[in-house]
């Protein structure tokens, strides 16, 4: 399909272009790019169009290492297209209508963070101490919004290895909110001083659980152990039809993560025969050649070691107190109900 080939190239570029806007998160960028794909596609029937969208989603998915939130956006848009009533006179008209709908939604969706911030405000009492994790745009919005009317102080985890907690720290301090960065390993130490935990999300899934920057799960476990509420913020386009039963069911999990290296492999020319069965992808050897002894002696993780670690983790629903989203305050059970009604209804 010639037209499909030409739009494939555009699709990824469009996606990246959409992501340039700081307000636009991956799922929205995906929806925007797919809606442009709709008008650019040469599909003549609904069946072809949906097929092309699925292919497009696949292309986007392959282009990134962490496709979870992007997938949520793609799925939402494709489910919407599939169920869209055919009322237009011509198929071309239907396609441009679909694109308008996609763009309209993206415009609306930008205001969702304000809605969530407003909703969260009701749960923040004056003089609260809040623990947050890494960097999340919606959490920043909520905290900055709360700062207008209430006194809050924030502990933020450093969130290794990307160190995005520092970004949160800088933005909050610039806004005049008292903020302290804590080690990822000091969460249990700080928990007693905290009123509640507030995290963003990569996606919320059908079990009612949460996928977010790695470390969220352990924070939730510690919060549960000290009886502190654990709130997650999620825009409704992050609702994702996925049912992970463990950390290793996430689409981001690959054999590299948590694999054991035989001691010889660090000596660059390690043969694959002696290593664990998981550890057979050629990528590992490629990366390990980058590693120099100098880096490993400086007691920080080498790039090679970081590769063995996950970016995101899964937080079980029983650890989450509430999820605030633009469609309202939801319990984890409500999330699964939403997802079932949206995609199975």
């Amino acid at each position: 399909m010639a037209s499909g080939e030409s739009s494939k190239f555009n699709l990824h570029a469009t996606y990246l272009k959409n992501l340039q806007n700081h307000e636009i998160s991956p799922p929205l960028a995906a929806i925007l790019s797919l809606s442009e794909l709709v008008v650019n596609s040469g599909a003549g029937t609904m069946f072809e169009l949906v097929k092309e969208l699925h292919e497009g989603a696949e292309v986007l998915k392959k282009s990134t290492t962490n496709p979870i939130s992007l997938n949520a956006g793609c799925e939402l848009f494709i489910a919407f297209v599939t169920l869209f009533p055919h009322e237009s006179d011509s198929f071309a008209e239907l396609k441009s209508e679909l694109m308008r709908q996609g763009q309209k939604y993206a415009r609306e969706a930008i205001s969702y963070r304000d809605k969530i911030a407003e909703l969260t405000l009701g749960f923040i009492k004056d003089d609260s101490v809040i623990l947050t994790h890494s960097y999340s745009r919606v959490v920043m919005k909520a905290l900055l919004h709360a700062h207008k009317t209430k006194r809050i102080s924030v502990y933020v985890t450093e969130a290794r290895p990307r160190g995005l907690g520092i970004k949160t720290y800088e933005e909050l301090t610039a806004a005049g909110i008292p903020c302290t960065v804590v080690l990822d390993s000091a969460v249990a130490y700080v928990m007693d001083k905290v009123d509640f935990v507030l995290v963003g999300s990569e996606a919320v899934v059908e079990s009612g659980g949460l996928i977010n920057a790695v470390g969220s799960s352990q924070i939730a476990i510690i919060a549960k152990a000290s009886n502190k509420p654990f709130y997650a913020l999620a825009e409704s386009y992050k609702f994702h039809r996925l049912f992970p039963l463990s950390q290793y069911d996430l689409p981001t999990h690959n054999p590299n993560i948590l694999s054991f290296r035989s001691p010889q492999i660090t000596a660059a020319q390690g043969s694959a025969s002696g290593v664990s069965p998981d550890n057979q992808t050629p990528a590992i050897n490629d990366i390990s050649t980058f590693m120099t002894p100098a880096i490993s002696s400086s007691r920080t993780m080498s790039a090679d070691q970081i590769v063995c670690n996950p970016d995101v983790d899964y937080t079980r629903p029983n650890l989450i107190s509430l999820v605030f989203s633009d469609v309202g305050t939801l319990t984890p059970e409500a999330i699964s109900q939403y997802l079932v009604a949206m995609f199975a209804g």
Partner: protein
Amino acid sequence: MSTVDIATTPSGSQRSVETLVSKLRRRQVVGSRDAALETVLVLRQVVSKARFSNIDQLVAIIRSVGRRLVDAQPKEHSVGNTVRKVLHHIREEYNTASKGTAASSSKVTYTISNFVLQGQPRKQTVAPKSEAIITLKENDPDDPDSFSRALKPVLMEAIQDVLDELETVYDNVSKNAKDHIHSDEIILTIGHSRTVESFLKQAAHYRSYTVIVAETGPSYKGHEMAQSLSAAGISTFLVPDSSIYAIMSRVNKVIIGAHAILANGGMFAITGSLLAATAARVHSTPVVVCAGQFKFTPLWNLYHDFGALDFADPSSVLGFEEGSLVDNVDVLNPYYDYVGPELVDVFITNDGDHPPSSVYRLIKESYDDDDHEL
């Protein structure tokens, strides 16, 4: 919204509103069910006397009355709930009635955000009660009353439904009592909840079991409860509150009442309930809450507010006869405990048994979202 003021409601119904406002303020009406009942009666009068020529005016009238009642006693949550329920029923009746005249005037546009909202819990559409389609003419300039004349009989019926629900609430809650209490069980209860009282008495018709009543200081409502239960022939023990924990290992079930149930599945219940529920959790004893659905309150976050609790007269804790102490200590007598959703196993309501996690759904189904703030 304040374009239609309370002033447009005729003086007769205004007087009844005023009476209830002052009764609520003076605490002459206490208890969720009594407050709810009084509220329906006042609303019925308001609607029957109200003059309106479209639905928005009527809703505004009811809301303004509702706001006044809620402000009079914000801690009596059932007042606001009843107003919301009446509004919900009225809108529903209006929608079924207006279907005949303005066919599908409010057609839902299909957008992605509406697609997401499909996930929202909705009430299964009830078959319309009024089979005969009434012709409704909104904002008729010649005869502004024609709208209200046509709609009022249906509205009265809708309000009567709310009233009927309240009047039969105890019977409906205790309908299945015998399935929850088994022979020779030991039940612990606290306070004097009418719902629990009728529930236990109903079960006593079929089973012989023992009830342990905590005396529930400082109001000692447990005394009344114990008296009433033993008068009904139930084997009853009265114990001091301080022995709840010690006794819990022998208890099969804790059955308590509620003052208000929040959207997260937590609830306000008489002081001591938190103690009983926590003790029950330690012994893995099931905690069963009996309550009518009119106690479901569309609020999530009251537990942050110490002031959300109601405080009773401190003299029952420390009277003036302790003169020398009174000057030196502050005495607080909170009337309710906040019991979190994790401590409750099931709510037995007049419409089925529900776990705390599905309370939010029932609330979404029985009230309209825009009424959460009256």
